[in-house]
């Protein structure tokens, strides 16, 4: 079968520390993969290497068969990969709408002439996207849809997460990388958020998700398959129930060597 | 080129380099502990020089005439005064802006520099005019053909070297130095290690500003003239030196300081018919260096902020 995303022997070092050690990881279209493992096991680093923030020191990454190992972040986004960040990275002074639109970059006309002179056409494009953003965020929180032009700064964590996820989803990516969406949120909030994400996924069937998460309940509930990392190495792979009982995994979590 | 002439150029270069280094080291120290640029540094140097001059005039007016005593007093007073000034700046202008983007600190200190400069110009008696600075060092000189070695220049060079070596020892061999380096490495860890962050910052600013005071007095003794604007260019050059050297690294600052002086002197010699272009030459090279090594020649920390 063809993989959507495939990492082969992926390696990344920071000074002496090996954050990704010869990692093989394949993602099948339309599945939801849980990427788990103790802190510092290389989960976030994997996202950062895939999205081109860090270069790889070894191995390769292919997306839809195309090698993206050395591609710049923006090329990877344009190919259809988008992500959220562990520490929410919204542009706080900007409005909700603006933040979502940042995620829509590739679908907006960026021409100088168009933006500065053809204001009529620009207005039409603006309205189309405004409606799009509005309908998307309504799925998560109708009230936010009423406050599209208010700055993000004042909003609670859960809303920021929602906006961040909308920013990642608005361009209708093929692959969504979720980096600890539950961080800084209560159990119920997280649950709510996940239901919303799944709801979006139902609207857009060919969305594949890789999620890094510590909330095992959540992982169990939504993932088709889990990959467990430790010290940048893959130590287990398979349905949650299966990996959960894996000795190595338990040792990794209990820190037994 | 004639050896004597050559050594004369080298001597000029060394003197300049020493003064630049004293300023640059200050910049790099501040950046080390706080990741900020204190741009008023050059003007602190000016204030230091004028404090020294005022001390001199004051003491002369009350009848003190022994040169060594005067020199000592001038140094001590201006060093202490600037150390205090440095602490005040850190306490009331720099630390309060910790949370704001580093750009604000850069701007606020830039503006503080203007304030200090204008204060000297407006409130020091006839501060707008260049002031003669007394020659407090023996001016005997040995003339070797084209090369004229002045005792006072030699002494200043020696002092400069001594100071830098001393600073190096302070940073590497003392508890305080350890604390400073700890904060420079990682503020949080330093705190958890029980280091009083604020105290360390204040002391670092005191040390840096004291260096500026010495630089100012040295400048006065070398040119026998000081003016309210002297600090601006010295500050910018010191800043450039610290940057091309690589912020946060003492060696970088030293390298940068002497490199810049070398560039100027080289510019003056290499372009004999346009020695006036030496600064243009030096700054062009600086910009080129930035393009080639965006984070300086010797890099210990990168400034990710702003």
């Amino acid at each position, binding site marked *: 079968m063809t993989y959507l995303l495939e990492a082969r022997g992926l390696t990344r070092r920071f000074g002496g520390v090996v954050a990704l050690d010869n990692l093989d990881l394949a993602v099948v279209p339309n599945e939801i993969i849980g990427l788990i493992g103790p802190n510092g096991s290389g989960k976030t680093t994997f996202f950062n290497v895939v999205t081109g923030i860090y270069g790889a020191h070894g191995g390769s990454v292919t997306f839809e068969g195309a090698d993206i190992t050395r591609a710049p972040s923006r090329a990877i986004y344009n190919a259809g990969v988008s992500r959220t960040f562990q520490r929410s990275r919204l542009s706080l002074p900007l409005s909700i709408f603006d933040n979502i639109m940042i995620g829509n970059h590739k679908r907006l006309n960026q021409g100088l002439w168009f933006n500065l002179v053809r204001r009529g056409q620009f207005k039409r494009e603006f309205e189309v996207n405004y409606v799009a953003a509005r309908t998307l965020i309504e799925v998560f929180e109708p009230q936010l849809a009423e406050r599209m032009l208010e700055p993000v700064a004042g909003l609670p964590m859960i809303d920021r997460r929602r906006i961040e996820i909308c920013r990642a989803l608005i361009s209708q990516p093929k692959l969504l990388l979720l980096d600890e969406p539950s961080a800084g949120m209560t159990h119920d909030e997280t649950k709510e958020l996940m239901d919303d994400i799944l709801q979006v996924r139902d609207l857009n069937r060919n969305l594949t998700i890789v999620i890094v998460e510590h909330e095992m309940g959540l992982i169990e509930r939504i993932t088709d398959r889990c990959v467990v990392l430790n010290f940048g190495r893959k130590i287990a792979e398979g349905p949650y129930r299966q990996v959960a009982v894996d000795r190595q995994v338990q040792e990794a979590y209990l820190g037994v060597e | 080129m*004639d050896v004597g002439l050559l050594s*004369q150029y080298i001597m000029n270069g060394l003197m300049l380099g020493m003064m630049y280094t004293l300023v640059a080291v200050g910049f790099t120290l501040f950046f080390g502990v706080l990741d900020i640029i204190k741009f008023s540094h050059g003007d602190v140097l000016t204030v230091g020089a004028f404090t020294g001059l005022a001390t001199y005039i004051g003491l002369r007016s009350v009848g003190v005439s022994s040169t060594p005593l005067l020199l000592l007093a001038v140094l001590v007073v201006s060093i202490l005064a600037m150390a205090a000034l440095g602490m005040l700046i850190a306490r009331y202008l720099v630390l309060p802006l910790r949370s704001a983007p580093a750009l604000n600190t850069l701007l606020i200190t830039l503006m503080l520099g203007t304030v200090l400069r204008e204060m000297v110009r407006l409130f020091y008696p*006839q501060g707008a*005019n260049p002031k003669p600075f007394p020659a407090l060092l023996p001016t005997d000189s040995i003339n070797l053909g084209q090369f004229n070695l002045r005792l006072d*220049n030699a002494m200043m060079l020696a002092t400069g070297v001594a100071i830098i070596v001393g600073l190096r020892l302070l940073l590497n061999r003392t508890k305080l130095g350890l604390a400073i380096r700890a904060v420079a490495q990682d503020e949080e860890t330093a705190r958890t290690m029980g280091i009083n962050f604020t105290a360390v910052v204040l002391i670092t600013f005191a040390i840096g500003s004291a260096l500026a005071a010495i630089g100012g007095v040295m400048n006065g003794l070398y040119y*026998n003239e000081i003016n309210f604007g002297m600090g601006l260019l010295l500050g910018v050059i010191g800043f450039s030196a610290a940057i091309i050297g690589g912020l946060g690294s003492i060696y970088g600052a030293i390298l940068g300081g002497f490199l810049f002086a070398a560039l100027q002197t080289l510019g*003056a010699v290499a372009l004999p018919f346009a*020695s*006036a272009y030496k600064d243009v030459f030096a700054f062009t090279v600086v910009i080129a260096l930035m393009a080639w090594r965006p984070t300086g020649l010797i890099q210990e920390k990168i400034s990710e902020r702003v």
Partner: protein
Amino acid sequence: MSRIVRQLGLFFATALFVGALVVTAQAKDKVKVGFIGPLTGGVSVNGIGGRNSAELAVKLRNADAKATYEYELVVLDDECKPNVAVQVATKMAADKEIIAGATHYCSATAIATVDIYHKFGFPIIVWGAVLPDITYRNKYAEVHRVNGTMIDQNDVNAELISKLGFKTVAVIHDTTDYGKGHNAYFSKSLAKLGGKIVGTFGVTSDQQDFTAELTQVKALNPEVIYFGGLTPIGVRIRSQMDKLGIKAVFDGTSGIVSDAFIQGLGPLAEGALAFREGASTEKLPGGKFFLEKYAAQKYDNPPEAYGAFSYAAMDLILDSIEKVGPDRRKVIAELANVKDRDSIIGKITFDDHGQNTVALITKYVVQDAKFVEWEDSEYASGKRKLSGQK
């Protein structure tokens, strides 16, 4: 009812009348005149000396019962910088209330502003700047000058040093029109007398470190270093010469004739040469009168070298206004026919370029921390010798 109307009428009538009175009173005898000079920066002593002298002229005139108008002096500072000068000159010329002005000590500022005075039809008399072009480049009716130009000055300068048997000269000049002018005229007159220029160096007027240039000068090993520039860098260059052990004679221009030069250098100033057009103030016809009046005002600055010229310029302006009234055009016309006019600096005659012809040049040498006229100095009498003098 009608009473109210009448009262109102009366009220307005008086109001109008009073108002009219006030207005006419305002308009009548208050007349503004201007002064521009360097009040801050390295040459500010000269500027302040000039300012005080101009102010003195105004004070004396206001004290004079026969004067038709009451004068108010508007003082602006050109900092001896062309760009600042242009701003303040525009400011003064644009202000229609100011009738005329005594302007500029620095040639660099004067040459930069003449076009502005012309553009606004604002009559001025230059009181200190010596660059010939100020009056001679264009033929502006607005521009006049009471002091002489730098040409004669440099002839005399070259004469003296070759008479003293110096053959080789290195020239250091600032790169403003002032310094360039001095360089040009001096080089010309020295060449005539067979002297040799071994090297010429242009330096900026706010340069701090001259060791690079001076090291090259030292290699050329001249007997004399001619300096075409103003006091501040003059001081720096002289003291850095000492740093590099350069023994050559320091030969300056009118630009360093000021106490600041001596204060700045202390003993190092000894034996420096300088030249100035016009007799030294004490020897001027009205010099005694001027110095007394000046002393009486208890200014904390001396009038300096050009104070007398500033006084004369302002006095001339006031005379003209008294004669033809506060009207720029008339004043310009009046100044055009100034001929053999008596003043404290002797007879003033403006040629067709508004230039006063001053033949006399005074030579100075610094002796015991004073600018002494060469003829009266121990250097002339041979009691002392300039360094390297045969």
